[in-house]
């Protein structure tokens, strides 16, 4: 059940032309630069600073509540972070150079790092210091600037969008959760690709560049690594690539052959959803103070617990659940490591809905900070649009639990459904899913406890 959205003439024209996407990226780049400038020279008061409010409230809420669940990696397709590096690499802003030629040293990314372990580490690093980054404009600016510098450096040294594919800490989880989205970019007919010897989607042509994400679209089976840059839609000479509307979560239905790095990404994201919900949205002032007191003995203890939860405790509990299921019913022929990675598919809907619930806990409450900041992005007393004086107004704060409960229950339903599917695909009895289902249920109750108890 899928429908080729990009075959609608109007949408096809939009996607084939370089201008709409370029204009959107360039506009976002202006906002991005403004966020960095505001962070560096604007007011240090986070709630009056464009960098903090627009990155961590407006952009984050849009990303988690709308873009990722409903459009997958659409953000990656217009993200401004790799744009300067990509323009340098292409020595072109909009129209491609003949043959899609790139100007880079073209070093291949080391084979051992062709996974998302570095993205996992990068996300953990950002998350560990998140209470500082989310609240201190200069820290946000330095992090964003750091992303751009690394992206530019990677573009000049490595081939194509190596930064997006292997380094971006945000891209790792967007890719993981984009499997839930009801859209996908795929080929229409694999046989057409097989007989197309030029493979312009990968090599590039006068119409565009070879896949910046280092993928052969004909081999795409899930959304994880496709950045929706739509370059292949422009370079395919057979009109054989399309963006399809599909059943939500279709990528998750194949629960075998999954990777350990993605399993850990799922665990890290779930653990961080818990930690953020407790530290940032919880009522424990001492915990916030400790998390913010970087370099103190208390902070080192916090960092130790943070890393232990992410890398050992939650993965350990999940391993125990999978191991118990294996004890209940032995799979046909699968190692424990492969089984662990395959069952980790359940963490995708569970983690995404956990993040939606966490984001709901602060986005609607704090969204009204955006209006004054629009008029006074640096906090210098301007009133460009006449909204500088608008007071903080929480939107429907009493309604937030009514949104969080169904969201978390949807995630739980999908997770348990996937656990049972995994048992079948591994030739196990359905009873083998019980421990993983219990893990998912406990995680849901835990999150609900943090919000409602």
């Amino acid at each position, binding site marked *: 059940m899928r429908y080729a959205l990009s075959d609608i003439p109007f949408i096809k024209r939009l996607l084939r032309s370089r201008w709409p996407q370029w204009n959107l990226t360039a506009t976002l780049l202006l906002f991005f630069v403004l966020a960095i400038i505001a962070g560096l020279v604007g007011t240090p008061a986070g709630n009056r600073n464009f960098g903090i409010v627009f990155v961590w409230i407006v952009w984050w809420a849009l990303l988690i509540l709308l873009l990722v669940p409903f459009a997958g990696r659409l953000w990656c397709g217009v993200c401004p972070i790799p744009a300067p590096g990509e323009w340098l690499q292409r020595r072109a802003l909009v129209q491609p150079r003949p043959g899609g030629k790139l100007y880079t040293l073209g070093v291949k990314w080391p084979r051992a790092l062709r996974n998302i372990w570095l993205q996992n580490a990068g996300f953990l690093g950002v998350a560990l210091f998140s*209470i500082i980054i989310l609240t201190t404009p200069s820290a946000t600016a330095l992090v964003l600037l750091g992303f751009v510098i690394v992206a530019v450096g990677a573009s000049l040294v490595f081939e194509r969008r190596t930064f997006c594919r292997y380094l971006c800490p945000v891209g790792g989880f967007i890719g993981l959760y984009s499997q839930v989205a009801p859209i996908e970019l795929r080929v229409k007919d694999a046989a057409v690709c097989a007989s197309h010897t030029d493979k312009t989607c990968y090599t590039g042509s006068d119409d565009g560049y070879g896949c910046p994400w280092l993928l052969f679209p004909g081999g795409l089976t899930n959304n994880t690594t496709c950045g929706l840059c739509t370059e292949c839609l422009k370079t395919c000479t057979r009109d054989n690539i399309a963006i399809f509307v599909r059943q939500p979560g279709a990528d998750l239905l194949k629960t075998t052959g999954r990777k350990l790095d993605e399993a850990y990404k799922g665990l890290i994201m779930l653990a961080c959803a818990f930690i953020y919900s407790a530290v*940032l949205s*919880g009522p424990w002032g001492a915990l916030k103070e400790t998390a913010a007191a970087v370099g103190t003995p208390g902070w080192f203890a916090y960092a130790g617990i943070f890393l232990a939860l992410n890398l050992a405790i939650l993965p350990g509990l999940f391993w125990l659940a999978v191991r118990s299921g294996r004890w209940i019913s032995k799979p046909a022929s699968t190692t424990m490591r492969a089984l662990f990675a395959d069952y980790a598919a359940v963490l995708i809907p569970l983690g995404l809905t956990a993040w939606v619930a966490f984001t709901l*806990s602060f986005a609607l409450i704090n969204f009204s900070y955006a209006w004054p900041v629009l008029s006074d992005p640096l906090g210098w007393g301007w009133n460009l649009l006449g909204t500088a004086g608008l007071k903080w107004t929480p939107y429907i*704060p009493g309604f937030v*639990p009514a949104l969080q409960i169904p969201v978390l*229950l949807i995630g739980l339903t999908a997770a348990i459904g996937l656990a*049972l599917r995994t048992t079948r695909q591994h030739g196990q009895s359905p009873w083998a899913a019980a421990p993983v*289902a219990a893990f998912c249920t406990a995680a849901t109750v835990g999150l609900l406890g943090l919000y409602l108890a």
Partner: protein
Amino acid sequence: MRWLVAGCTLALVLMALLAPLPAAMAAGAAPQARRITIAARGFAFAPGTVRVNRGDTVIVDLESMDVVHGLYVDGYGVAAQAEPGRSGQLTFVADRDGAFRFRCNVACGNLHPFMIGKLVVSPNLTWLRAIAATLITAAGTLILFWKR
């Protein structure tokens, strides 16, 4: 059959979340007036969690120990402000059960958006209903997908 299981599960979840409870089950302790002093300092409230019973008249004395702070109660929409040496006060009847965040509503520094406390109005039926709904969802999903 699948649709029947799915429908029953959904109906039970909705019942768990929304069905009115018998008065005896929903009733809590007898209402009384409660005076609570909350100190605000360095992006934290003390006590961080305040527990009252439904129907209680809650009188909050907000005392600021460093800079100007506010206290806004989600779901009740009431607020007060205090500065060092001058406390603020707010009074409301806790007529809705559940857990509600209260938060500083006066920009007080970097961690201001996360200066949060919690008001728990017992009996916290929202929490109990959510647990019931979660367990029903888990059981219903297991039954639904058991043999597919």
